[in-house]
C-alpha cells in the first residue's frame, strides 16, 4: 500500500492473548476499526491481562494506549521520505513506544504488551488515535475493551489488594527519608539577594555537555578556578556563543567550551558524563528512525563527527565516548567481503566517518587509509569539516577544512598556540598535535563556494579529524589571558618585538594579529610607538581601518592603569581623533565603550548629579534625526577638548529636508561624563564619557548606532579583559590572606566573588522594568545611572563606585522616578527601584557607621557579621522608606494615631537590632504603605496586638507571621494576624514548632484558623509542628471530607508513620538506655534524612535511628517480594513498589552507617513474626548492613494513631461506599 492509497481507516487491531499464569488457554481476537465505516468488532469485547495487543498502522497520527489510568504507549507515528514508518516520542514523557512487529511498508504492525494484573480484576483498555495533519478535521478514533484477568491472576491480585487496602504505600510519606534539607537552613543563612554562590555554579549545557554556562562577568581566572580548581588554567577553555538563552535570574551568562573534559573538577566531570549518557540514549532513539535519505545522511555524519570530538572523554569504565557512539551505529555497517564490515552507509559523507574512525576510534576499525602528510600535514590535506547553515536555514552544508600552509612547529601546545594566535596570519588557523610530539599550526581555508560566510551564520561548527585539534577563527581574541608572569612571557616578548620591527606606518599589518596577552607587555614607549605607526600613517584610511580600530580596542583594554593617561593623550590628539571620528563602521563605538570602561577602572570619575551633566541627543526617531558635530580644540598643555554641536534633521515629503543646528556645548575633556538620549526603536539614556559619545556620534548611520548600543551583557568579553587585568581577585585574595592555606584563600576569593554577584544581581532586578522605566525621561535617567553603577560593579571596583557618588546619584534618581510616576508606577517597578535606592543608601550607611570600608577589591567589612551588615542595613533602609510612605498616607487620610506611630517606631528599633526584625519591619511597612489608609491602620493595630499577646518563645514565629502578613498577595493581613494570635500565646508550644508553623502559615501552607479548631494536644502539636514535612493541607482536607474513603486511607497511612515516630520518641529511654536523643530528621552526608539521632551518654558516639511504621504484614510481603526478585520471578506492580521501598531503606541505612556514626538502629513494630524478623535481619546483612533492630509496641502505635485521628476530627470508622470518586 503506498502512502497515497492509504485509506483513512488507518488502524486495524489484532489482539492475541498470551497464556495466562494459570495455564488458561489463549484467546485470539481480531478487531478492525475504520474511521469512515462503523467499527466492526469481531468475537470479543474483552482481552485477558498479560496478553499482547497488536496494532496495524497505516496513517500518520498520535497513538495512545491506556490501561485504566496508566498510559502504556504515547507517540507520534509517521512515514519518512523513503516511505518507512517511524516514531517520535513525546518530549515530556519517558519513552513510551510500542514494539515494532513489522516495519515493512504496507504491512506496518506494532504490539503492546498488556500488564499481567489489573485493579479490581478488570480494567478498561483504550486505544486512541489522533489523525495527523492530513485528516486533522476527522475526530480522533477511540476504541475500548475490558481487560480481564484469569482465575489465578485474580487470586494473586486479590491478595495484593487486601494488603494494600489494609496498609497503603503512602504511609511512608510522612516518615521516610530522601527529602531535601530543612528549609530552616536556608532561613538561617539567607542568601542575599538570592543564592549568589548557587548562581555562580557552572552549568553543563545538556545538549553539548563539553560547553558550560558561567557567569559572564567573572574573570578568566575565576572561571578557571570554578571549572578546574586551578585559577591558572585560563587557556583550558574558549568562549563561544551560547546556543539559546536560559533564564538568567538577573545574571548574565556566557558559554565556554572546555578543551579537556577530563581536567574538570570531579563533580562537574560527573555532570558532563551524566549528560553524555543521556545524549547517547537520545542518539539511540534518533537512530531507530534514521533513514539513509540525503539530509539524514549528512545529519548522521555531523552527529558522528560531534561524537568523534569526544574521543578523549571517557566514561566511568574508562571507555571513550566516541567508541560507545560507534557501537550504536555499528549495526549499520555493510559487509564488504566475508567478515569485513565497513562504515560505508553514509553515501557522499562516508569518508568523513571513516576518517574519524581511523584517526580517533580506539576499539573500532576501518579499512580506510588516511593519506594526509604525517606527521607534518601538506597543503590541501583535509584537517576537519565545517558544518554551517548556508542559505537555507534548516539545511546543513558540510565544507572541507583544508591546509593552506604550515605556520608554526613547536614543542608545546601553549607555545604553538601563542605563535598561531599572535602571528601575522589572521585568517582561519588550526593547531594539530603531531605523532612526533610536536604541535603544528596551519593556515587553513574552508572550501566554500557559496557567497555566505560561515562565520556570520549561527550554528556553524567545526570538527577536527585529529585528536586535540584546535580551530582559531579570524577575529577571535582572548581578553583576560594575561601576558605576564608565566613561562611564555619571553615568547610573547619575542612576538611583540618582531611585530613592532616588521610594522611600518605604511604597512602596519604585522601588528594587527596581536592579542591582549602580547599587547599587555607593551612598555609606555612601545605603546606610543605602536600608536604612532597605526595612527600617523594611512592605516586609518586604508582597507584595514576597522582592524586597526579593533587593535586600538585591545590596546586600550590591555593598558595598565598607570599608563592610561598617556594612552588617552595619544588617542585624543586632534589629528588622530579627527581621523577616528571620520571613520565609518561599528568598531568606533566599541572603542568608545572600552575607553569608558577603562576610565572607570582607572579613576574615581566623580558623578555628582545627572542634571548638571551636559546632555545630548543621538539617533533617529520617525522623520527626525539627531546628529552631533564634534569640533575639536586644543587647550593649553596640549590636551584636546571636545565640543558637541547638535544638528537636528527633519525629512519632510513636501518640503526639502531641514537642518537645524543647536548651540555648541562647552569644551569637554575626553573622560568627562555626559548624558546622552539615544533615540530609536527603544529610547534610552546613557551616561558615557565624552570620548565615547564622540565616537558613537561619528557613525552617521543611526541603525549602526543601535547595533553598537547592544545590551550590557554583550560586553562581557571586554569586562573579562578589564577585570582580569585590573587584578584577578583570586590572586589578590590569596596574597591578602597570608599564612593561611591556599584552600582557605580560594574560599575567601569565592566569597568575595559571590558578594560581587549579589550586588550585581540586586541592581539587575531593575532590568525587568526597563521597558516601563524607559517610557519617561526620569526613568531613562535612572536607568542611565543604574547602568553606570552596573558597569562599575562589573569591573569590580566597588571602592571607586562608592567614592564617585554614582550610588548616591542612583538613589536620588530613583526618588525622582517614583515621585514623578506617583500612582502610575507599577507596584513591581516601585519595589525594584526602591530596592536599588535602598541598596545605595545601605552602602552609605554601613560606610558611615564604620561597618565597612571601600577598597579597590570591594567592600571590606570590619564587623564580625561581615557582609550581613550590608544586608541588614538594606532591610532597615527599605523599612524606613516604606514607613515614611505609610505614615504620609495615614496622615493625609487623617487616620494616623499615636499607637500606629508607636508600632512603627517599635518595629524600627527592633529592626536596628536584628536582621530578621529588619526584614519583618520592611515587609509590614511596605504592606501598610500599599493599603488604603483605614485598612493600613487596622493592620498596624493587628501587628501591635500580635506582638503584645505573644509569649517570649514565640518571637521568631511573630517575625514569620509579620513577614507573611506583609506579602502583597495577602488579602486581609490584619485578619491573618488575628487568626494567628492563639498560636503565639498558647503555653507549652516550643520555639521550633512555633517557628515552623508560623512559616508554613505565612506561606499559605497551613490554615491557622483550622489548626486552632483541632483538638491536638500541646505535645502532639509540638511534634507535628516542628516537622517541616507535615502535610497539613492533606490533614485539613481529610478532616473536611470524612466520606472520602481514598483520602481517609491515605491519611491513616500518614498518621501511622507519624505515630511510629511519636511512640519511638517516648520509648527512647526504655529502648536505648545509655543514649540521649540528640536530633530529629537529621540530614546525612549522602543526602538522606534519618528520623532520629542518638548520642551515647558519655558523648563518645552517635547513631542514626530509623523508625519504620510498617505493619508486620507489610514487612512480610516486602521481604517475600524481595525473595521473588532474587529468584528472578516476575513481580506485580505492588511488589515492585515494596521492593523499591526496601531498597530505599537499604540506601538510607547505608548512608546512616557511615563514620563517624556507629551502627544505625532500625525500629519497627513488635508484631513481626520470628520468621519475618529473621528474614529482615538476613536481608539487611546480605546488603552488608549490620543493624540492630528494636521494636516498639504495636498497641501504642495504634492508640496514638487513634488519638491523632480524634484530635483532627477524622472519622474512626470508614464508610465502605463511594471511594471519593476515584476507583
Amino acid at each position: 500500500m503506498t502512502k497515497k492509497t492509504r485509506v483513512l481507516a488507518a488502524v486495524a487491531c489484532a489482539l492475541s492473548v498470551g497464556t495466562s499464569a494459570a495455564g488458561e488457554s489463549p484467546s485470539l481476537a481480531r478487531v478492525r476499526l475504520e474511521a469512515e465505516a462503523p467499527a466492526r468488532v469481531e468475537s470479543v469485547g474483552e482481552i485477558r491481562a498479560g496478553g499482547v495487543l497488536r496494532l496495524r498502522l497505516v496513517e500518520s497520527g498520535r497513538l495512545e494506549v491506556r490501561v485504566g489510568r496508566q498510559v502504556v504507549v504515547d507517540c507520534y507515528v509517521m512515514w519518512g521520505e523513503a516511505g518507512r514508518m517511524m516514531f517520535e516520542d513525546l518530549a515530556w514523557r519517558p519513552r513510551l513506544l510500542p514494539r515494532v512487529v513489522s516495519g515493512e511498508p504496507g504491512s506496518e504492525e506494532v504490539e503492546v504488551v498488556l500488564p499481567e494484573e489489573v485493579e479490581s480484576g478488570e480494567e478498561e483498555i483504550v486505544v486512541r488515535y489522533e489523525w495527523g495533519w492530513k485528516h486533522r478535521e476527522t475526530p480522533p478514533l477511540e476504541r475500548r475493551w475490558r481487560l480481564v484477568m484469569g482465575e489465578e491472576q485474580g487470586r494473586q491480585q486479590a491478595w495484593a489488594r487486601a494488603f494494600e487496602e489494609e496498609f497503603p504505600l503512602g504511609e511512608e510519606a510522612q516518615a521516610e527519608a530522601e527529602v531535601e534539607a530543612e528549609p530552616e537552613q536556608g532561613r538561617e543563612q539567607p542568601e542575599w539577594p538570592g543564592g549568589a554562590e548557587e548562581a555562580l555554579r557552572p552549568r553543563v549545557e545538556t545538549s553539548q555537555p563539553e560547553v558550560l554556562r558561567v557567569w559572564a562577568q567573572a574573570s578568566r581566572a575565576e572561571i578557571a578556578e570554578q571549572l578546574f580548581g586551578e585559577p591558572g588554567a585560563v587557556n583550558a577553555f574558549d568562549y563561544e556563543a551560547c546556543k539559546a538563552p536560559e533564564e538568567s535570574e538577573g545574571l548574565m551568562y556566557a558559554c565556554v567550551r572546555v578543551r579537556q573534559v577530563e581536567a574538570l573538577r570531579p563533580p562537574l566531570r560527573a555532570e558532563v558524563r551524566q549528560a553524555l549518557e543521556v545524549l547517547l540514549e537520545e542518539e539511540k532513539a534518533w537512530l531507530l528512525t534514521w533513514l539513509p535519505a540525503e539530509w539524514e545522511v549528512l545529519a548522521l555524519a555531523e552527529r558522528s563527527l560531534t561524537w568523534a570530538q569526544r574521543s578523549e572523554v571517557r566514561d566511568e569504565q574508562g571507555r571513550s565516548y566516541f567508541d560507545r557512539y560507534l557501537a550504536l551505529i555499528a549495526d549499520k555497517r555493510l559487509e564488504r567481503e566475508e567478515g569485513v564490515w565497513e562504515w560505508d552507509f553514509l553515501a557522499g559523507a562516508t569518508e568523513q566517518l571513516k576518517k574519524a574512525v581511523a584517526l580517533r576510534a580506539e576499539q573500532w576499525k576501518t579499512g580506510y587509509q588516511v593519506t594526509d602528510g604525517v606527521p607534518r600535514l601538506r597543503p590541501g590535506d583535509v584537517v576537519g569539516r565545517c558544518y554551517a547553515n548556508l542559505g537555507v536555514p534548516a539545511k546543513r552544508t558540510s565544507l572541507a577544512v583544508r591546509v593552506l600552509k604550515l605556520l608554526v612547529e613547536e614543542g608545546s601546545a601553549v607555545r604553538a598556540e601563542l605563535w598561531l594566535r599572535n602571528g601575522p596570519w589572521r585568517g582561519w588557523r588550526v593547531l594539530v598535535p603531531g605523532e612526533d610530539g610536536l604541535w603544528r599550526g596551519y593556515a587553513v581555508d574552508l572550501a566554500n563556494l557559496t557567497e555566505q560566510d560561515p562565520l556570520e551564520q549561527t550554528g556553524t561548527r567545526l570538527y577536527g579529524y585529529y585528536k586535540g585539534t584546535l580551530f582559531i577563527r579570524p577575529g577571535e581574541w582572548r581578553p583576560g589571558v594575561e601576558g605576564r608572569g608565566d613561562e611564555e612571557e619571553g615568547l610573547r616578548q619575542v612576538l611583540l618585538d618582531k611585530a613592532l620591527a616588521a610594522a611600518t606606518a605604511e604597512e602596519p599589518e604585522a601588528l594587527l594579529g596581536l592579542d591582549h596577552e602580547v599587547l599587555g607587555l607593551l612598555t609606555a614607549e612601545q605603546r606610543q610607538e605602536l600608536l604612532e605607526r597605526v595612527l600617523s600613517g594611512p592605516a586609518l584610511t586604508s582597507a584595514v581601518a576597522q582592524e586597526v580600530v579593533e587593535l586600538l580596542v585591545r590596546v586600550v583594554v590591555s593598558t595598565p592603569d598607570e599608563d592610561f593617561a598617556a594612552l588617552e593623550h595619544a588617542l585624543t590628539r586632534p589629528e588622530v581623533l579627527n581621523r577616528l571620528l571620520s571613520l565609518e563602521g561599528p568598531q568606533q563605538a566599541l572603542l568608545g565603550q572600552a575607553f569608558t570602561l577603562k576610565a572607570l577602572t582607572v579613576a574615581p570619575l566623580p558623578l555628582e548629579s545627572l542634571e548638571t551633566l551636559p546632555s545630548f541627543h543621538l539617533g533617529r526617531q520617525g522623520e527626525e534625526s539627531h546628529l552631533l558635530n564634534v569640533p575639536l580644540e586644543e587647550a593649553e598643555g596640549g590636551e584636546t577638548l571636545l565640543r558637541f554641536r547638535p544638528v537636528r534633521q527633519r525629512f519632510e515629503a513636501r518640503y526639502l529636508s531641514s537642518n537645524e543646528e543647536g548651540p555648541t556645548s562647552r569644551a569637554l575633556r575626553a573622560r568627562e561624563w555626559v548624558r546622552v538620549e539615544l533615540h530609536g526603536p527603544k529610547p534610552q539614556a546613557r551616561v558615557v564619557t565624552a570620548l565615547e559619545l564622540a565616537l558613537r556620534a561619528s557613525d552617521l548611520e543611526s541603525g549602526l548606532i543601535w547595533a553598537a548600543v547592544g545590551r550590557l551583557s554583550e560586553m562581557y568579553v571586554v569586562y573579562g579583559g578589564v577585570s582580569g587585568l585590573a587584578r584577578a581577585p583570586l590572586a589578590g585574595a590569596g596574597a591578602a590572606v597570608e599564612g593561611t592555606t591556599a584552600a582557605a584563600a580560594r574560599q575567601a576569593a569565592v566569597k568575595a566573588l559571590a558578594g560581587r554577584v549579589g550586588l550585581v544581581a540586586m541592581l539587575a532586578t531593575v532590568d525587568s522594568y526597563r521597558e516601563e522605566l524607559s517610557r519617561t525621561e526620569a526613568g531613562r535617567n535612572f536607568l542611565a545611572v543604574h547602568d553606570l553603577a552596573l558597569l562599575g560593579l562589573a569591573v569590580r571596583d566597588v571602592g571607586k563606585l562608592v567614592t564617585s557618588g554614582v550610588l548616591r546619584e542612583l538613589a536620588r534618581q530613583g526618588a525622582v522616578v517614583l515621585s514623578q510616576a506617583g500612582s502610575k508606577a507599577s507596584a513591581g517597578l516601585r519595589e525594584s527601584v526602591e530596592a536599588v535606592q535602598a541598596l545605595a543608601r545601605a552602602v552609605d550607611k554601613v560606610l558611615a557607621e564604620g561597618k565597612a570600608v571601600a577598597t579597590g577589591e570591594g567592600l571590606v567589612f570590619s564587623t564580625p557579621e561581615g557582609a550581613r551588615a550590608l544586608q541588614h542595613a538594606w532591610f532597615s533602609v527599605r523599612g524606613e522608606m516604606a514607613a515614611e510612605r505609610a505614615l504620609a498616607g495615614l496622615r493625609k487620610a487623617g487616620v494616623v494615631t499615636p499607637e500606629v506611630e508607636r508600632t512603627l517606631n517599635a518595629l524600627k528599633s527592633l529592626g536596628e537590632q536584628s536582621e530578621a526584625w529588619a526584614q519583618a519591619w520592611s515587609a509590614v511597612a511596605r504592606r501598610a504603605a500599599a493599603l488604603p489608609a483605614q485598612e493600613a491602620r487596622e493592620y498596624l493595630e493587628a501587628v501591635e496586638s500580635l506582638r503584645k499577646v505573644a509569649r517570649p518563645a514565640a518571637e521568631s514565629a511573630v517575625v514569620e507571621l509579620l513577614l507573611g502578613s506583609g506579602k502583597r498577595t495577602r488579602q486581609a493581613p490584619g485578619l491573618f494576624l488575628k487568626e494567628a494570635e492563639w498560636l503565639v500565646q498558647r503555653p507549652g508550644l516550643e520555639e521550633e514548632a512555633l517557628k515552623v508553623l508560623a512559616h508554613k502559615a505565612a506561606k499559605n501552607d497551613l490554615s491557622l484558623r483550622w489548626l486552632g479548631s483541632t483538638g491536638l494536644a500541646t505535645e502532639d502539636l509540638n511534634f507535628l509542628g516542628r516537622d517541616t514535612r507535615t502535610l497539613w493541607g492533606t490533614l485539613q482536607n481529610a478532616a473536611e471530607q470524612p466520606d472520602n474513603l481514598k483520602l481517609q486511607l491515605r491519611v491513616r497511612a500518614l498518621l501511622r508513620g507519624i505515630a511510629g515516630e511519636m511512640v519511638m520518641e517516648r520509648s527512647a529511654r526504655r529502648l536505648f538506655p545509655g543514649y540521649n536523643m540528640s536530633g530529629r530528621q537529621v540530614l546525612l552526608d549522602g543526602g538522606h534524612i534519618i528520623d532520629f539521632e542518638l548520642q551515647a551518654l558519655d558523648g563518645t558516639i552517635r547513631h542514626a535511628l530509623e523508625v519504620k511504621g510498617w505493619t508486620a504484614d507489610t514487612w512480610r510481603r516486602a521481604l517475600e517480594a524481595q525473595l521473588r526478585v532474587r529468584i528472578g520471578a516476575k513481580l506485580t506492580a505492588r511488589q515492585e513498589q515494596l521492593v523499591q521501598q526496601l531498597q530505599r531503606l537499604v540506601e538510607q541505612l547505608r548512608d546512616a552507617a557511615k563514620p563517624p556514626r556507629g551502627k544505625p538502629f532500625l525500629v519497627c513494630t513488635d508484631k513481626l513474626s520470628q520468621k519475618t524478623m529473621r528474614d529482615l535481619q538476613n536481608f539487611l546483612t546480605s546488603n552488608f548492613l549490620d543493624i540492630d533492630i528494636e521494636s516498639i509496641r504495636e498497641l501504642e502505635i495504634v492508640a496514638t494513631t487513634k488519638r491523632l485521628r480524634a484530635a483532627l476530627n477524622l472519622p474512626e470508622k470508614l464508610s465502605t461506599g463511594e471511594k471519593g470518586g476515584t476507583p
Partner: protein
Amino acid sequence: MSGKRRWVVLAPGEVAWVERRTREILEQEEDGSEHHFRVVPGQGHYQAIVEKGHQDFSSEMLLGEALSRECEEPVYAIQRVDEFFHVSRFLKGEESWEEREPEELIRALGCVSEWTVEPPLELPKKMARTVALIQGLSIKKIYKALEKEAGRPLPVGYYRIEETPLGVLLTDGTGPLIFAQNYLAERFPRTTVYSVTASPDLGFFVVFVMQGNKTLKFVPSSERTTTSSAVHEVMGEREPERILAALGIPKEWFRL
C-alpha cells in the same frame, strides 16, 4: 539528595507571562528563601512551574493562590513528600482539594513534569554471601523440606550443599540461598542453624544462631549493642576466622 522535585504548579497562560509572574511573586517574598524554578512549556494552555531541586519551601501554595487571582481557569499546586502527593486547586485565590492524581492531572492539562515518573531503582548486583550450618539434619531431609517450600523439585546444584562432621553446610548454588536457612530453623525447631554472612575478606562478618524461637547474634565484645540477644562468642571463638574454622565453613565460600 534524592533529586526529586518537591512541588510543581500548573498554571494557564503564555510561558513568558507565567515565568515573569512567578518570578515577581517569589521575589516579593523577600524572606531569605531562594527561588529556583523553571517553567516547562506544556502542549496546551497550561505550563508547569517546577522547582529546581532547592529548598524552596512551600512556594507552591503561594504561587497557586497568587497566580489564580490573575487567571480565569484554575491553577494547581502539587506538593510531594516521597511517594505521597497533595494536590490543591486554586480558583480566584480560593483553594480546594483536587482529587485527581498528579500524573493524571498533568497529563490532562498537557503539561510536562519529569518527577511524576521515576525510573525504577536498580537493585545492587553484589550482595554479601551467606553460608548456613545446619546441625542434626541430613542433606536429603533438607532438600525435601526446601522443595516442599518451593512447591517444585529443585534442580541439581540449585543450592551448594555439603555434609561435614559438624552438620550440613548450605549456601547459594545456581539459585540464591536468601531466607532458606530461616525456613529450616522454623520448620525444624530442634535443630541449631548458624547463619554466617560475610564479605570475602571477613571485614563484614555477622553470625546469627537460631534454635526454636531463639535467635542470638554474635557481636564482638569491643562493640556496643542494644540487642539483648547478643553473644560475644560462637563455639567458644571470638575472631571471624576462628569462628569459621569452628563451624567448619571454608573462608573461600564467601567469595562473591
